[in-house]
């Protein structure tokens, strides 16, 4: 029951994100969508992931998005009356992507029953918190991938600084 509520909210908010003319509202609906996703995580017995989702995506990253929208003062897209002209090649690529995405979705739904569940909360010993389990998995089994990711982010950060400040 709750799953359908959160799921519907997430899908509706995501649709509103692309349906808005005002970029400010798009950002806000994206936040609403993230909040609904956090609700889904809680239903999956992963409160830690849910809270992290709110802190990092809804709390930190979306504030930056909001800043960018506010500071660029993006004009309200008053092109609703004008039919947007799109090149035929762009349309063809778009159509191709839609077909690929739909096929992928259909395949995923069709084979959903056959796949095994990778992680479940039942496997945890009594009293073991999901935070601890997550930490152990992340820093023991996937330590290399974790560290490589952090180096990747560092490189991206340095690149941004160099690009922004050419006369260092």
């Amino acid at each position, binding site marked *: 029951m709750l799953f359908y509520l959160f799921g519907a909210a997430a899908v509706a908010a995501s649709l509103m994100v692309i349906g808005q003319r005002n970029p400010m509202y798009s950002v806000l609906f994206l936040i609403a969508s993230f909040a609904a996703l956090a609700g889904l995580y809680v239903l999956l017995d992963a409160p*830690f992931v849910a809270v992290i989702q709110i802190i990092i995506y809804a709390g930190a990253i979306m504030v930056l998005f909001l800043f960018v929208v506010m500071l660029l003062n993006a004009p309200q897209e008053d092109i609703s009356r004008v039919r947007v002209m799109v090149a035929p090649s762009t349309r063809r690529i778009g159509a191709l992507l839609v077909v690929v995405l739909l096929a992928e979705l259909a395949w995923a739904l069709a084979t959903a029953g056959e796949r095994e569940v990778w992680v479940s909360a039942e496997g945890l010993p009594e009293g073991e918190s999901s935070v601890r389990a997550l930490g152990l998995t992340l820093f023991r089994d996937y330590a290399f991938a974790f560290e490589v990711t952090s180096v990747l982010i560092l490189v991206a950060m340095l690149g941004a600084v160099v690009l922004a400040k050419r006369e260092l």
Partner: protein
Amino acid sequence: MIPTFIAQIVLLLFVFHMLLIAAAAMVYAERKVAAMIQQRLGPYLVGPRGLMQPFADVIKLMFKEQLRPLGADRFLFMLAPVLSAVTAFAAFAVVPFGAETTLFGLLEEPMRLQVADINVGVLVIFAIASMGVYGIVLAGWSSNSKYSLLGALRSSSQMISYELSYGLALASVLLVGGSLSLTEIVDQQAGTWWGFLPRWLVVLQPLGFLIYMIAGIAETNRAPFDFPEAEQELVAGYHTEYSSMSFAMFFLAEYINMVTVSAVAVNLFLGGWHGPFLPEAFGWIWFLIKVSVLLFVYIWIRWTLPRYRYDQLMAFGWKVLLPLSVLNLIVTAAGVIYFAV
């Protein structure tokens, strides 16, 4: 005998109203303490010793006209103060303020004095606090006024900068506490070391406590970090265009946020409701005393220190507070591993 379900709802309403009253009391305390510091009398006409002053203020605000600037985004302009107030109230939901109690045998089974016991409580407070930024940003943007926009930008960049140190201070105390649940951390702080020193985590984390309090002041936009409301530069910052009850909601949110930050500090660093002389059932008295002391310090600081300059604030946040809190986290982690606490 009252079933637990009804008791929970009563507790919910009780906490809600206590927060409202706490905000009113803070307004009164702020004006009285400010007056004392400046050798004035402060409010004294409304009620005995001016005690009714906050209520008079609220009534005045209620009867004021609700103004909305031309060109303001109507929906977001109304949403922003509500968002601020809601997040302020919601954050307190996971704060425990007393031991398990049956209210002198009134209840069937003991109940925690806490609206929601979530095992990642500390993170929930952090998450909700980070949502509170949106109230301010949206208020500044939707007002369609340059002062509001500048105030909102300052306020949110300040909150984002200090949130890092705030989070790292929380992380180091959580390392020592070994849990993300506020109740468990408080329960660890019962009793004393060597018979006289209370087992409060502030003893193990003095630097963490200091960083937490400084970042907490910045998070709640209080002086000396009250740039969003720097009158000389920005009129009143993000709430310049607000009047009547929507203005009151911003004020309410600010004071409730102060109460929440102090209450969390008491739970994490000062032993929560544990203290000498009083039996466990009356622990909430200790809790009230500790929170009141911290709130007094808040007011004291506001009326003693002048406001920083904006670049000083940013430099202090990024170049002093953040490295210190990282250092604190590393030393704490090393200590936890070495002593295997």
